[in-house]
């Protein structure tokens, strides 16, 4: 067996073990239902923030409308489940795909713009999607919202376990896709667009094509997040997907570090949890978010992962370079010092 396959196999086993362990802990209620719910919401937030990170962090194109893509995914999935009795798994995928189509249609005109202009246009499109949802009352229930989306299962014991497991699987899939993309040749092209668009052009990279590609994939991932959200939450209302929601995802990306997958995961779970434990502050907790942002920009502008030299954690790299001897030697630094 060659080394890469071995690394991949061990990584897969670790992921599987993590899956069995965490879902097991949820199933036996070691992690109580409330915490499991926070973890699930956190996971959904992370998925959508990862999508945003692809376009804003890795490609360097500031987008402010990802709540819109989340909404497209959520309503599509809900409609498919409720009206056409599509099973949940393909319904979620369809949510992602429809959102990707929206991403493509919006991206074609919008990605001709740069920087602030692009941010404003994506913000506008996000709002347009929300307003359409308000008015398409046949499918979306209009401003009153869409009630009674069937959950993953009606069994009260399995419900938190299944939701959590589903989010875990999708989150791992999204991370693997992003990680492989970033380390591939198209991924390099995407990063070089962030670094310097003119130079990327001069190197023969089809800048517009790769921007569209990243934006569409980003919308797909956000749509997936929305698709999971619909049956998990059971109720949708267009006003859940307003501008503030888009900004929340952007805050996760910025806090974690632009273009850093590990950072987005940490910041996504961290902020979701923080929002819950600060509930006693009532509406004042909304002050905490911007406060964290201000402090972060002052002391650690590269984001959370800036602490670790800006390189994200990589499971495969960890497995490949894992060497018990090395760790043992590190515990006896005295000898090296005596030399």
């Amino acid at each position, binding site marked *: 067996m060659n080394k890469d396959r071995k690394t991949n196999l061990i990584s897969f086993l670790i992921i599987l073990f993590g899956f069995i362990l965490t879902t097991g802990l949820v199933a036996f209620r070691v992690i109580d239902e409330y915490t499991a719910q926070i973890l699930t919401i956190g996971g959904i937030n992370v998925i959508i923030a990862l999508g945003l990170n692809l376009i804003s962090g890795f490609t360097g194109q500031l987008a402010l409308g990802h709540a819109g893509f989340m909404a497209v995914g959520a309503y599509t999935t809900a409609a498919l489940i409720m009206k056409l009795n599509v099973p949940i798994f393909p319904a979620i995928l369809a949510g992602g795909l429809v959102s990707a189509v929206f991403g493509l249609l919006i991206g074609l005109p919008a990605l001709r713009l740069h920087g602030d202009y692009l941010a404003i246009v994506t913000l506008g499109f996000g709002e347009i999607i929300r307003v359409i949802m308000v008015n398409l009352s046949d499918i979306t229930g209009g401003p009153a919202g869409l009630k009674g989306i069937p959950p993953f299962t009606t069994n009260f014991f399995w419900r938190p376990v299944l939701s959590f497991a589903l989010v875990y699987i999708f989150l791992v899939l999204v991370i693997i896709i992003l990680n492989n993309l970033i380390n591939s*040749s198209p991924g390099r*092209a995407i990063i070089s667009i962030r670094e310097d668009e003119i130079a990327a052009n001069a*190197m*023969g*990279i089809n800048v517009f094509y790769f921007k569209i590609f990243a934006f569409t994939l980003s919308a797909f991932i956000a749509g997936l997040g929305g698709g999971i959200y619909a049956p998990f939450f059971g109720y949708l209302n267009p006003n859940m997907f307003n501008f503030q929601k888009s900004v929340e995802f952007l805050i996760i990306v910025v806090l974690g570090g632009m273009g850093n997958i590990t950072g987005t995961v940490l910041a996504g779970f961290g902020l979701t949890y923080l929002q819950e434990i600060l509930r006693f502050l009532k509406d004042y907790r909304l002050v905490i978010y911007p406060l964290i942002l201000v402090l972060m920009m002052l002391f650690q502008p590269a984001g959370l992962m800036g602490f670790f030299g800006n390189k994200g954690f990589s499971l495969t790299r960890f497995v490949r370079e894992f060497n018990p001897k090395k760790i043992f030697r590190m515990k006896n630094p005295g000898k090296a010092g005596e030399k």
Partner: protein
Amino acid sequence: MLKVKNLNVYYGNIHALHNISFEVNEGEIVTLIGANGAGKTTTLHSISRLIPIESGEVEFLGHTLQTLWPHNIVELGLIQVPEGRRIFSNLTVKENLEMGAFIRKDREQIKKDYEMIFTRFPRLKERLRQMAGTLSGGEQQMLAIARALMSKPKLLLLDEPSMGLAPLLVKEIFSIIQEINKAGTTVLLVEQNAHLALSVADRAYVLETGRIVTQGSAKALASSEDVRKAYLGG
């Protein structure tokens, strides 16, 4: 090799290039010299299709470039080293060079080309794993040229390679440009440092406020009274 005919470029209402015509033959070093704002960079950008042109024709190896996308032009072998180096500062030197070879599929030849780059720029080999943004100005310029060479240019457009560099480094860069030319790459050089540019070039065009005012062999221009007065400081 490259033929530019009656090129007109506008920035909004401003007529930036007036009927520019020139050509570059295979194997030459041709230089465009002129003061700030003369239209040198604009000319290069319009050749590479980074800005739209109003009228005129650009022909490279028999292809008309107006109908192509910038990345198609790179595939034809016309590579620009943009002004101000524009390396990818958050990527390593190695990754920068890899980006240079982005359009190429011939892996074996790419490997050989790395060796060629390292013999020509030994400094880059020492800094292979370093972030490109941490290199000195001179090293960054070398990286920018090396990155362009990785895409196997037939014609290399160099935009102000001397910008912001110490005189000694500028000399080094220019001798590298001559070496590259001798190895078979045609060079179109845009420079403000007219003295230096004329000393390495075969032919030269002098640009003034968007028009070509003089042209001729580099030697003749270097000794011409008008050019000396206007650009070489007496």
